[in-house]
């Protein structure tokens, strides 16, 4: 074999702490290595051209690049060697950046380590075989999980591109958090006025099938051919008959049901339509509060319904859809702020969340857009906003910034003054993060034109003074003093966290999530929409905190990814799958028993039982290879001999 080795300096990223020239010199002495060099930037155009040239000039039949993580550039270099006529699997990478130069400063140790990693890569490459991808059909249909603004955008863009879309939403209506907002910053647009038309488009698009009040039960398959089971949760209302007329909600006697859409700022009926612009506009019975379901007596809604849609016997239903790609857009939930005992832990009615405040501000909210104190229904005068509740707080395990609270707080302060010109707003903040288009200007207006008092410091405690006020004890660090405000209403800018159940969904999607439950993108800078599972894309806050414009942009980006994936009629399968050596197989069935994907089957081969791999089902985990005692089933590109070669290259010296 003739192997070429390229030790990348990556500017000073590697060159700074690894003697690349020395590594190249050492590499030249490794078995089968006929050419070794140390380019400055291997991944750049001249670097790649140099590889292609070397392949031709030195008749190389294998290439090792020692540079960054293969998770970053393995696909890049595979394409490079392919352009020069080699099989793309006749290529190995040694990670001497993330695993060497960036984690230690000892040049001698780093250089030695880099050389050994190259030696391992060469040893493995000597055992590599050319692999050829098979091609398979793509099911050009996409699943969008989550019907918030990001999911809506992704669904609409895909539908516009002619792709059938299955949109699954956990709640009874799409719209997500944005549907609950009164106005949006920095333009103070009416949220319902800009989101509403998009929701209607979803309802009217012939390409979009919406499953509201539904959740993902399970997902199997792989890029191009996923099979998804969707659990349609029991609504007790036959939606095929429900016209959304609302007659049932007028007659329902259980009028003290907490109103989830209004963030429990008000009450509703046990059978309810989330809000007038809901899509789909269908009724749902809340089983915890329905008299008929709790006691068996009532049935008013069934009597009222003009289409006979009510069905108290209804059960959850499972439906199966097959799709070729998936967009996860599951959004966020608010941090459980009641753990802040110093802010009353949820016991003071006049300490509310910013999302509850949105409902109070909203003309379609429980108070018709009048700001009143939940405790006594009176209009507040002094309104205190506290930022970073549940954000930038290590003590509760939420050290990250929630990104948009600074802006919506400024918006809410502005709206407060609009609603109640005599009111005075105070905002306790730590830093103002207003780095969007027109954002800082807007925040300054809140101060300069609306007279909002911004106080730089965190709040230590809120307590009722026993005379109807809430004492807010904070600090003004600019003044260097503790300060107090006698507040009538306190609004907490509660931070965001990954939506409940995000981790469980990630497991079903086989994608990673970070320690806070946000889904992991493929690369934090360069692949913010892709995941490490082919065919699964991300949009919106499920990937990390972001505001509406960013969520919409990512929704469109995810749709673009889906459309480009679907632009091909066939996809190439990953040839790194298991293969059975028929003569070694004794049909003991251990591989069949352990394969997580059911990708191995026994078949009759000239009168004898043998195992075989179903190519399109095998995902390439290699569990079977580790299970087979006689080594009869081998995972291509990670065979026993390849890994043994790596181990031996390291140990037998």
């Amino acid at each position, binding site marked *: 074999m003739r192997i070429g080795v390229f030790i990348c300096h990556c500017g000073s990223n590697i060159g700074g702490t690894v003697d690349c020239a020395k590594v190249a010199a050492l590499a030249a002495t490794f078995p089968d290595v006929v050419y070794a060099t140390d380019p400055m930037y291997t991944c750049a155009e001249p670097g790649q051209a140099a590889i292609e040239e070397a392949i031709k000039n030195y008749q190389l039949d294998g290439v090792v690049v020692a540079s960054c993580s293969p998770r970053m550039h393995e696909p890049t270099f595979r394409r490079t060697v392919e352009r020069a006529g080699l099989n793309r699997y006749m290529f190995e990478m040694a990670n001497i950046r993330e695993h060497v130069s960036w984690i230690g400063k000892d040049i001698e140790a780093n250089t030695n380590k880099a050389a050994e990693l190259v030696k391992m890569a060469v040893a493995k490459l000597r055992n590599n075989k050319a692999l050829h991808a098979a091609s398979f059909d793509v099911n050009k249909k996409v699943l969008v999980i989550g019907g918030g603004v990001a999911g809506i955008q992704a669904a609409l863009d895909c539908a516009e591109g002619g792709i059938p879309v299955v949109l699954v939403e956990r709640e009874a209506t799409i719209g997500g958090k944005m549907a609950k907002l009164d106005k949006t910053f920095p333009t103070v647009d009416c949220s319902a006025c800009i989101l509403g038309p998009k929701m209607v488009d979803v309802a009217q698009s012939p390409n979009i099938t919406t499953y509201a009040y539904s959740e993902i039960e399970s997902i199997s398959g792989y890029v191009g051919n996923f099979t998804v089971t969707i659990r349609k949760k029991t609504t007790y209302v036959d939606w095929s008959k429900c016209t959304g007329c609302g007659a049932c909600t007028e007659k329902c006697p259980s009028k003290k049901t907490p109103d989830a859409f209004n963030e429990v700022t008000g009450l509703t009926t046990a059978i309810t339509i989330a809000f007038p612009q809901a899509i789909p506009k269908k009724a749902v019975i809340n089983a915890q509060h329905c008299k008929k379901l709790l006691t068996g007596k009532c049935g008013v809604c069934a009597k009222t319904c003009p289409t006979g849609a009510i069905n108290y016997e209804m059960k959850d239903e499972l439906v199966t859809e097959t799709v070729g790609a998936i967009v996860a857009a599951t959004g966020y939930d608010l941090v459980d702020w009641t753990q802040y*005992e*110093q802010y*009353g*832990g949820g*016991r003071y009615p006049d300490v509310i969340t910013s999302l509850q405040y949105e409902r109070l501000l909203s003309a379609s909210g429980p108070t018709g857009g009048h700001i009143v104190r939940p405790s006594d229904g009176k209009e507040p005068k002094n309104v205190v906003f506290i930022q970073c509740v549940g954000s930038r707080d290590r003590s509760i395990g939420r050290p990250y910034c929630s990104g948009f609270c600074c802006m919506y707080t400024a918006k809410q302060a502005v709206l407060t003054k609009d609603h109640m010109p005599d009111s005075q707003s105070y905002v306790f903040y730590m830093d103002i993060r207003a780095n969007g288009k027109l954002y800082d200007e807007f925040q300054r207006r809140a101060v300069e034109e609306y007279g909002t008092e911004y106080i730089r410091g965190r709040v230590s*405690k809120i*307590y*009722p*003074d*026993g*005379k109807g006020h809430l004492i807010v004890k904070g600090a003004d660090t600019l003044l260097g003093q503790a300060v107090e405000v006698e507040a009538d209403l306190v609004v907490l800018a509660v931070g965001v966290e990954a939506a409940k159940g995000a981790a469980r969904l990630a497991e079903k999607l086989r994608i990673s999530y970070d320690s806070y439950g946000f889904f992991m993108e493929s690369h934090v800078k360069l692949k913010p929409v892709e995941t490490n599972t082919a065919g699964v894309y991300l949009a919106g806050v499920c990937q990390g905190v972001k505001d509406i414009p960013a969520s919409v942009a990512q929704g469109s980006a995810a749709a673009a990814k889906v459309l480009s994936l679907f632009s091909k009629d066939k996809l190439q399968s990953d040839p790194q799958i298991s293969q059975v050596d028929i003569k070694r197989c004794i049909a003991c069935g251990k591989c069949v028993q352990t394969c997580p994907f059911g990708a191995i089957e026994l078949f009759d081969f000239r009168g004898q039982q043998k195992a075989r791999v179903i190519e399109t089902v095998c995902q390439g985990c290699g569990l079977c290879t580790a299970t087979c005692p006689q080594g009869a089933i081998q995972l291509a590109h990670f065979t026993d001999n390849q890994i043994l070669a790596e181990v031996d290259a390291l140990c037998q010296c």
Partner: protein
Amino acid sequence: MSIVYYPGCSAAGTSSDYEKSTQAVCDALGMSFTPLPDWNCCGSTPAHATSTELSAALSVRNLDIAAKMGAEKVATPCPSCLSNLRLAKKRMEKPEFRARVDELLDEASSAELPQTYSVMQLIYEKYGSEFVAHRVQRPLKGLKVACYYGCLMSRPADIMADFGHPENPQVMESLLRACGAEVVEFPLKTECCGASHGIPERQLTANLSGKILETAQNMGIDALVAACPLCQMNLDLRQKQAGKAMGKEFALPVFYYTQMMGMAFGIKLSALGLNKLVVSPEPVLKKWQAALKEGVCE
């Protein structure tokens, strides 16, 4: 195995009423303690403000005697002692620290030192509010009270995690509710009263106690209930000073929780040291007795 009792210095002076009522309530519940012989002062704030090691040495001497008696737990009514004894045990887990402290002691301390608990926590964990309610003979009817723990009963949070939320403990509330009192949630229950600065910086203490008393009085309660000798002294003996600082006049009796429990258990008032309260408890007692009589008529 036995629980060893560490009374703390104030038990013999400022808070002999706390001591008396604690003993009476424990007797009534059937909780027995072995006295810790030859105990010494934990050093309180002055010791730890001087040196962590000195403070630990003073505390460890007590824990060590208890350990050698085979004690499983140490009980103390005083939150300040509790905090010092617990911190000392925790810090002794570090070998370097232990070596430094052992150097100060007559002999090296036992490897395993017993953990310290407030008497309140022991009562609550051993008997629970249901049993306490069962023991009540003269429920605290008609009395609206607020609980005040002070700053050390539930803090520092990392060593007092077993007592409840450091901002909002509920043990005293449960016990007093079991005794029949109407207990209001007191938002300042763990705010500081000014502690031992009463002597050198009386204005500081007067201000802090004043704020607590003011909020408490605004809530329309009959009495404030405390669990710390120093807090009780600052809120009761210094109530006039606090009033002056706030420009108000307070007349809010400040009981120990054990006095309230003792009353409910039907223990003779003289055995509860109520005579030591500076702000007269008479209005509270009258209201209570009137409510009890009413109950009889019903």
